[in-house]
């Protein structure tokens, strides 16, 4: 990918109007924000595309909204849009595809109309099969158990605990349940299944099985993004993402503690 941005020539490339570009970019930024991109990435991508078409962009990134203004070079004409972020859930795949799209535009490989079509296709791309995600998340969490020193029986317990907890999470989110309640329920049932090792004496490392049975629920991406946003000076976004992650972690902890108390296992 070129670090230099190619400039379109009017004869070869369709030059969008300020309004057209603003609509496209606001949608693009809302898509990036929705799929879990950091503020610095959103700013860079938007600037890259707008500069290619010969416009200046100014943007405010709020926790769930994008406020974008596109100016012409002379600053005599502008267009502003406030767009709510897309509710797509965190998706590395979409994040990568949208970033790649910005480079393809900046390198002059695709025109504006083609980019609009491609972006629409990316927004509506269905995510990976949920059952595959369920299986892979369970395998990953069982591997975590092994990394922390758990034996193979504990790995099996963690696999089942994750499988059940993650399935509960998927079906409850499908049914439109509140995400905090979903985290509580998933953590509760995963911890109860994870506690089976302690209660029935399965394996030699039941405490590791219990500890790692809820690891899949830790909201790692919001935590990492909040630090990235803070370093970049986007304090409102950083604080919002951090609080969101804290609330989810609190729900997870409440579910875990509930499971432990019910099983007669002390927290401390």
């Amino acid at each position, binding site marked *: 990918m070129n670090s230099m941005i190619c400039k379109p020539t009017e004869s070869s490339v369709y030059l969008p109007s300020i309004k057209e570009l603003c609509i496209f970019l606001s949608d693009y930024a809302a898509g990036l924000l929705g799929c879990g991109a950091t503020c610095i990435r959103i700013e860079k991508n938007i600037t890259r595309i707008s500069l290619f078409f010969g416009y200046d962009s100014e943007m405010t990134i709020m926790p769930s909204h994008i406020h974008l203004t596109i100016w012409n070079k002379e600053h005599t004409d502008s267009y502003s849009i406030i767009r709510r972020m897309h509710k797509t859930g965190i998706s590395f795949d979409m994040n990568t595809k949208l970033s790649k799209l910005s480079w393809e535009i900046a390198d002059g490989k695709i025109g504006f109309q083609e980019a609009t079509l491609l972006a629409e296709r990316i927004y509506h791309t269905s995510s990976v099969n949920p059952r595959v995600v369920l299986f892979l998340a369970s395998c990953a969490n069982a591997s975590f158990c092994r990394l922390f020193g758990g034996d193979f029986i504990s790995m099996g317990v963690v696999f089942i605990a994750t499988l059940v907890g993650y399935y509960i999470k998927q079906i409850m989110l499908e049914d439109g349940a509140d995400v905090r309640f979903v985290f509580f329920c998933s953590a509760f049932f995963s911890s109860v299944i994870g506690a089976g090792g302690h209660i029935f004496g399965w394996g030699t490392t039941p405490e590791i099985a219990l500890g790692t049975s809820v690891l899949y629920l830790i909201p790692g991406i919001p935590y990492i993004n909040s630090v990235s946003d803070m370093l970049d000076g986007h304090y409102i976004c950083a604080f919002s993402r951090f609080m969101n992650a804290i609330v989810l972690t609190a729900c997870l902890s409440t579910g875990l503690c509930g499971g432990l108390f019910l099983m*007669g296992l002390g927290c401390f």
Partner: protein
Amino acid sequence: MSEPMIVWAIIIAVLVLAFVFRVIEKFRKMTKRKSHIIECGTEKEMFFCPGDKRIWDEFDDM
């Protein structure tokens, strides 16, 4: 069986039952049209007698 074992077994049984009921419900929805025991209908539906003319658009010429 100790108390934690019984509690554990009950929680797992409840969970399994919830999954089974969900599967049954899903299967029922797939095979049969959803029917309600109590429904909200219109006046016309309440006073409809077999053989009546079905004129639904009362305000056609308005």
